[in-house]
């Protein structure tokens, strides 16, 4: 468990909850759980471990979450580019199903390979890709308002 894993876990909950307090609380729990599992089995794949622990903590906490009420501030320690519009993501976080939301975060934001996501969740890679396809379609429709220039600049 290194800095990148800690960062990944923290970012996962940032995007999943869009709530500083909940994100930090869940991150603390997930990091602690990750450390424990890694101690028991040092051979554990870090990506799989991240998927397993974040999913486990998310499952416990997401029921208490009222999606669509973001509560984030840069004071909490998030570093956001000034030109980034989080509006589409807020909408997506509110409307997407749990599978779609988590799949996009793991695969497209944290860049965890689909194989590791599938292993961590105990599902097939095809299922992961199916969820990603649906999720990106939804996210794309919401992000269409965002300037194409800006998006192309990223490319």
């Amino acid at each position: 468990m290194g800095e990148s894993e800690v960062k990944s876990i923290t970012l996962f909950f940032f995007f999943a909850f869009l709530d500083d307090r909940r994100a930090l609380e869940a991150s603390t729990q997930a990091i602690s759980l990750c450390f424990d599992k890694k101690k028991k089995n040092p051979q554990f794949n870090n990506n799989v471990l991240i998927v397993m622990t974040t999913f486990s903590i998310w499952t416990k906490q997401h029921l208490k979450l009222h999606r669509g009420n973001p509560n984030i501030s840069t004071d909490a320690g998030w570093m956001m580019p000034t030109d980034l519009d989080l509006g589409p993501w807020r909408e997506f976080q509110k409307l997407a199903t749990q599978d779609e939301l988590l799949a996009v975060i793991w695969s497209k934001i944290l860049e965890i390979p689909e194989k590791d996501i599938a292993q961590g969740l105990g599902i097939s890679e095809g299922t992961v890709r199916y969820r990603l396809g649906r999720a990106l379609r939804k996210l794309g429709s919401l992000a269409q308002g965002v300037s194409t220039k800006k998006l192309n600049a990223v490319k």
Partner: protein
Amino acid sequence: MSETKRPALSKKGQRQVTPFTGNELLYDYMSGILDEERKRAVEAHMESSREAQLDFQKIQIGQQYAEKLRQITVSSALQERLSAPSSYLSVLFRKSKFDQWPVGLKWGLEALVVVFVVVTVLTVAPWEKVMKLRLSTGSDVVLTELNKSQIKQPPQEAPETAETPQFVDEGIKVKEATTTPTPAAVVTTTATPAVVAKATPAPTPAKPPAKVVTSTATSEENSEAESTESGKASTGYLYRGQIAVTNLDAVGPKIKDKIIELGGRKAGEVELGWQKTQGSAYFHFTIPEAKYAELQAFLSEYGKAKISKDKHPRVMPDGIIRLIISVDEAKK
């Protein structure tokens, strides 16, 4: 019937994908994981379907937007904070979900903890020792100091035993003491072994703060010194009293005579029956404890004596008590 053309069912037959499958394969197509045949089939589907083109565009935009979201990072300070090993208390709070408890319950619990701590401290703390410490500081009176090196030396001369006051008068105020006719501040003989008696506070500012009285070493004094050394452990008593009499000039000498008759000796600096103020005589003396009742009975003949027994750091020899009695002229 069998003449009708049917699409081939296998891959080799180049079967076209249905619109549903074509749409579902758009993401795979974008990811570039389809084989050539499937790729061509999806491309053919996209050319014929406007819906597929729009879907593909949405997926691309979604992908680009998600990539842009990667720019969000976590500050190193936050990372360090989260990486730091959690303390036992924080784990306890987390496991008990303390932050989710109702506010009233939290406050109640906190109040309970505070009360418990306070009660425990009050119960466990050795208050007797603390009080003794407080009382002993500043009120310690060194009555005698025994110089052992001098005790070992042989006596040079047989000195005359000087009648010295054994105790410093404690009832006299500073101003009043300056009017004392016979102060007898320091009485010194060259006799050894010597017993040095020191008493504080000094009765008058004019006199030296400590009074040194040297006298021959008698067994009684030695025992007294020993008892003083262990005086911190035991507690002595002082009888303080007051009596109002009619015709003090006549009664005062009678009381003095009675005290002497009962075996009393003056203590302190002033003589028995010293006229403290106009209409008030002062008796500071020691008598055998056995005679105390008789003295009380005698005093009751002249008036109602109010005598109280107070704790005092000075310990008297067994069977001897010390009294300070003020005899005042009764008001008419």
